[in-house]
């Protein structure tokens, strides 16, 4: 938390007037949103507020009907998902997408970008990519170790528990060496005992110099790790500020938190 307060506002992601409609229904209509470098931003809001849709649009998994967004100074509006990921903007999914039929290690190795062995013309010639693969392997093992999964590296991802899959997904995303990590409900379906370990990893991402945006419903989690909170409702941003500012915001209480969770002033 400490290093965020003195950081100069330096947006890594700037969203301008992004609109997404479904059958005439406006799912997302965000006029302006900036995510600052080296911070953890929580995205909260009721169901159907458009959080996941906004995620999908920004990461190239859905198209916008209007608007533009810049990532790290580059206009990336409408880029396909894989290019955005290569650019350093990596996401995870609400329902984990651990690749169940691959081993844990293969899941990790898959994450590394720019592998020459992934090109079909190079792939048959093992000597061309063996050294590179070894380096990737080491990096993957180190990360698995970090996330407490190294004992499971040879197992199929299908055999992991839900929480472990979330950990694997996050570790795999780090193999891409992202600048910005977008986590869609990283704690959903995770055993409470594992939540702390996950939170610790999220904080470490920021401490390593990355930027994190995450969607979350558990206000305890939101309050404990975010530097900034953005609240969406009916496709719009209704509040944007420090966690304290946002939970005190009457609109947020009305639309999302309910009276029980409003902080006593």
């Amino acid at each position, binding site marked *: 938390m400490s290093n965020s307060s003195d950081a100069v506002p330096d947006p890594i992601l700037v969203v301008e007037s992004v609109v997404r409609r*479904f059958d005439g229904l406006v799912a997302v209509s965000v006029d302006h949103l900036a995510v600052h470098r080296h911070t953890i931003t929580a995205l909260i809001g009721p169901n159907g507020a458009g959080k996941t*849709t906004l*995620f*999908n649009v920004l990461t190239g*998994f*859905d198209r916008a009907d209007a608007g533009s967004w810049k990532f790290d100074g580059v206009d990336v509006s409408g880029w396909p998902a894989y290019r955005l990921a290569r650019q350093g903007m990596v996401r995870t999914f609400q329902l984990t997408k651990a690749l169940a039929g691959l081993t844990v290690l293969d899941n990790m190795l898959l994450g590394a970008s720019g592998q020459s062995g992934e090109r079909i013309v190079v792939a048959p010639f093992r000597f061309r990519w063996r050294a590179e693969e070894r380096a990737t392997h080491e990096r993957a093992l180190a990360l698995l170790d970090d996330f407490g999964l190294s004992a499971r590296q040879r197992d199929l991802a299908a055999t992991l528990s839900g929480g472990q899959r979330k950990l694997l997904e996050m570790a795999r995303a780090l193999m891409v060496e992202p600048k910005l990590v977008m986590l869609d409900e990283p704690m959903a379906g995770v055993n409470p005992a594992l939540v702390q370990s996950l939170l610790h990893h999220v904080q470490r991402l920021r401490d390593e110099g990355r930027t994190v945006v995450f969607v979350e419903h558990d206000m305890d989690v939101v309050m404990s790790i975010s530097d900034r909170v953005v609240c969406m409702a009916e496709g719009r941003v209704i509040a944007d500020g420090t966690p304290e500012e946002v939970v005190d915001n009457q609109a947020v209480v009305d639309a999302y938190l309910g009276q029980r969770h409003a902080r006593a002033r």
Partner: protein
Amino acid sequence: MPKAGRVVVVFGLASISALLSGGRAHAVTTTTTTSTASAASIGGMLTVDNHPVPGVRVTASRGAAEVGHAVSDRRGAWRIGVPGPGTYKVALDVSTLPSGVRAERPELAEYRVFGSFAQSAGFTLSAGQSKAPGGQSRLDVFLNLFVSGIRFGLIVGLCAVGLSLIYGTTGLVNFAHGELVTFGALIAWLVNTMSSGPKLPLVLAAIIGMIATGLLGATLELGLWRPMVRRRSGASGRMLVSIGLALFLRYIYEVIFKGAPRSFRQYAAPSPVKLGPLQSPVRDYVIMAICLATLLVVGTMLRRTRLGTAIRAVSDERDLSSASGINVEGVTLLVWISGGMLAALGGVMLGMGSQGVQWNMGFRLLLTIFAAVVLGGLGNPYGAMAGGLVVGVASQVGTYWLPSDLQFAIALVILILVLLARPQGILGVRERIG
């Protein structure tokens, strides 16, 4: 633009499609087996502007020796069994051609037969001065094609609704649906014409065919699909099983009913009635009326009745339907029964047309049915009806410009084009992502 009505083309079996010879001709065994049997044959279909040319004698000979001959039947079909692979001379007996019809090349001097299966040989004829019956204007030709397209489309629609309902309620892409179509027509034909049988009138025979096919559908559901679903087999596994089942049934039909097409005792060769520019036998209008009425009844039942609601609910959310007290397995069984009955009706209607009843008639129709179902949006029964009409009309009307041996290709090209423009089908709804 071809000179419609002037150039008369007679196709080989290959005409409506080489699909006719089914999967038989898949590959050739060059190694000689100890088996002495041979199922090699040469065949074809003689038609004039889609009108059959019966009574033409065709001979096949090797060297100087004639190995077999055949006379084209009511539908213009002929088939000669030959001793085995080799080069034959296949020739039309020009003197047996109807007056005015000329063969461009009455002799195929070096026709190669390679392997033990049915093979097609084509003869191209011209009709000299005489036009196709009637002497129609271009507009008339077009209109007649359009009407026959509607008839064909309604039949495809009947078959497609069943396939679509089955897909909706069970998630199965049923490659054996064509065999249900064939089964209905074959049973009806048996009851209608078998010499030792009851020789019931076609209406009754059709009903019996439908009931029998409904029972076949029920048997398949109870004996095959339900146990597979209970063992949690996925959709892809069941799809592959349906491919195996299709082969199994289709070739059993061939064993029992042999290759040649057959026709029902009634309504086989009616004479056309002139109705303005339209020239179709009354039979065709009756077929259209029956199909349309059936589709309307099915559509209304799906909308209005409790059973229809249940079917739609199961297609929508299977587990939730059972949680609402719907007997999901019971509904699935009913869908198989009614899907089978609709397919059988389609089969009988198809069998009344010029191609007759044949062991692989349903298989030949299968891709067209698929095209209809996909066009309408997978699993949407109303879409399947609409898709059937579109495919049927397009493939018939398309022959106005293109040779009619491309008829099936037209339906499939339309399918691909529509998928490009509108992947969710004509009536499908685009799914929300995320």
